[in-house]
């Protein structure tokens, strides 16, 4: 019996020839990532358990990316950044992307990719549930809490229960108006918010392999919204081209064997996919966008690790070009690199930033911003009964701030089309 990519990576990191789903193993960790919300708690547990003068297991393998509560006057949030700074300097950590410096990046999952920390075949843990995003690079990556992160800081190891793998294959070609966000919302709708709990979501098929790295990241990013432990896409030339531009470190690629054992397999015909939304208040509350055209919105929000990458904004710009938005529309680049792309890259002679400004959008600085609500003064946060169409990842009650607001999760095409009409709008109405 063969092995899946995930099983092969975990076996290699546990010093075994093979592993079996359900087995508990200890793995060696290649990268531990933390940020401003969970870093301080992780650091305090690390010191409590390993001693005041303890050193991290390997400074080369620790990456700290403040991204959540950056542009706020909240004194506790700002104090938490100081705790990160102090730890980085005390431990001499080379990979720290400090707030207020040229080194600042923004949302950790996208920064990890852009800064070359995502490498095929590696094992990456992060104190953030969307750490599964990195699986787009053919690696094992998953979210953990402060205690597990502190354990890794001290030992470089963590126990893992080997997950069963579910494979989602898309064959053929996606229509032009379909984005990876439509696909992940479709699948979560099909299997439910706990449909992949404890399991790997493996993406396959020619339609998936035709996606860019950014689109692949969107697919893997929301595996956690189906309960998935990790998501994975095998590394191919597209992956290697992206990775080799950004790191010189060696890595190894793995593929699933033909006779690997899958818990579940489903094949979709890519050409039949339609734009979808997740209605309030759950990411699996799926509906076709065209079925929601009577729903009025107060706000459109385009940003986050899920929907704030360059390709997401290029899609939105295609729709917003030369037009005016009908509702408050917030543009929040995931990282400073994405922000620079908005300033420099053009569509029909205009920079993306100008297209958004002329359309009447409000532009925010790179960070997690209102994806998860956050402190009261967070850019784009809801405070009342707003109905929002958003390219973010969760729409549980209160996720974007106010418990009374209602969030529809959608692709950047749908969020932009809806911004122009003030109701949930199928992008096909705008793209023809």
């Amino acid at each position, binding site marked *: 019996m063969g092995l899946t990519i995930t099983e092969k990576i975990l076996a290699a990191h546990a010093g075994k020839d093979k592993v079996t789903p359900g087995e508990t193993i200890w793995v060696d960790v290649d990268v531990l990532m933390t940020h401003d919300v969970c870093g301080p708690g992780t650091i*305090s547990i690390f010191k409590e358990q390993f001693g005041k003068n303890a050193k991290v297991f390997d400074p080369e393998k620790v990456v700290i990316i403040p991204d959540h509560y950056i542009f706020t006057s909240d004194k*506790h949030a700002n104090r938490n950044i100081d705790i990160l700074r102090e730890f980085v300097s005390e431990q001499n950590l080379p990979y720290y992307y400090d707030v207020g410096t040229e080194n600042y990046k923004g949302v950790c999952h996208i920064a990890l990719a852009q800064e070359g920390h995502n490498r095929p075949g590696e094992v990456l843990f992060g104190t953030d549930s969307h750490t599964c995003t990195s699986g787009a690079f053919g690696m094992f990556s998953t979210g953990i809490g402060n*205690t597990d992160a502190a354990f890794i800081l001290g030992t470089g190891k963590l126990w893992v229960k080997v997950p069963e793998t579910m494979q989602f294959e898309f064959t053929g070609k996606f229509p032009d108006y379909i984005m990876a966000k439509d696909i992940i919302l479709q699948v979560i709708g099909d299997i439910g918010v706990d449909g992949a709990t404890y399991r790997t979501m493996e993406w396959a098929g020619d339609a998936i392999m035709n996606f860019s790295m950014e689109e692949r990241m969107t697919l893997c990013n929301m595996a956690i919204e189906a309960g998935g432990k990790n998501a994975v896409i095998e590394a191919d030339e597209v992956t290697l081209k992206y990775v080799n531009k950004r790191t010189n470190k060696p890595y190894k690629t793995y593929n699933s064997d033909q006779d690997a054992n899958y818990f579940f397999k489903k094949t979709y015909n890519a050409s039949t996919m339609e734009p979808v939304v997740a209605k309030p208040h759950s990411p699996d509350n799926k509906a076709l966008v065209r079925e929601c055209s009577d729903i009025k919105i107060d706000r459109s929000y385009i940003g986050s690790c899920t929907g704030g990458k360059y390709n997401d904004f290029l899609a939105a710009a295609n729709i917003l070009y030369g037009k005016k938005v009908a509702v408050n529309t917030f543009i929040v680049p995931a990282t400073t690199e994405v922000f620079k792309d908005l300033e420099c890259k053009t569509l029909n002679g205009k920079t993306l930033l100008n297209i958004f400004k002329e359309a009447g959008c409000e532009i925010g600085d790179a960070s997690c911003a209102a994806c998860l609500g956050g402190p009261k003064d967070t850019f784009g946060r809801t405070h009342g009964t707003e109905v929002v169409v958003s390219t973010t990842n969760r729409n549980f009650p209160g996720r974007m701030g106010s418990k009374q607001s209602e969030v529809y999760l959608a692709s950047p095409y749908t969020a932009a089309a809806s911004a122009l009409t003030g109701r949930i709008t199928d992008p096909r109405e705008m793209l023809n």
Partner: protein
Amino acid sequence: MKQIITGKAYVLGDDIDTDQIIPAEHLVYSLSDPEEKKNYGKFALSGVPKIEAGLPEGNKLFVHEGKFESEYTIIIGGKNFGCGSSREHAPACLKIAGIQAIIAKSYARIFYRNSVDGGFFIPFETLDKLLNSIRTGDTLKIDLEAGTLTNNSSGQTLKLQPLGEVAEIVKAGNIFEYARKTGMI
């Protein structure tokens, strides 16, 4: 480890996510400062919509205005309890509010791991949902050795699921104690 846990039940529905357990705006307080961390108790479960707070009636405050601890010490959940973010503030805030055990049909993976590895409380599972057989305010008794849950208010007793692969970590107290016991650290 206590062999018998008794307390009043607070009943919640399916898919209680970490933003309902502790809304993200509160994730700024220190978890190590004894005074500051009380805020987590104060805001525990403050994101649960009122009609779903304390079933079956709803509209039951988990922590009263001006308090940092709850009168309830056992949470009854449905399926996929603790889904959403990886924030350890979620099990931490429940512990700070005084929760001693959670009993649910199933858990989201990271919340379950955090509860066990951090040694906050034992996340027990049951074969069936308990939403219809336990009401908020019922007095419950968990017997660890027998692996049973008794509802003193109704007299009903049922079996809890075995802890499986995490039993040794639960027994040791947390992942660090387990690692020390087994000579890893």
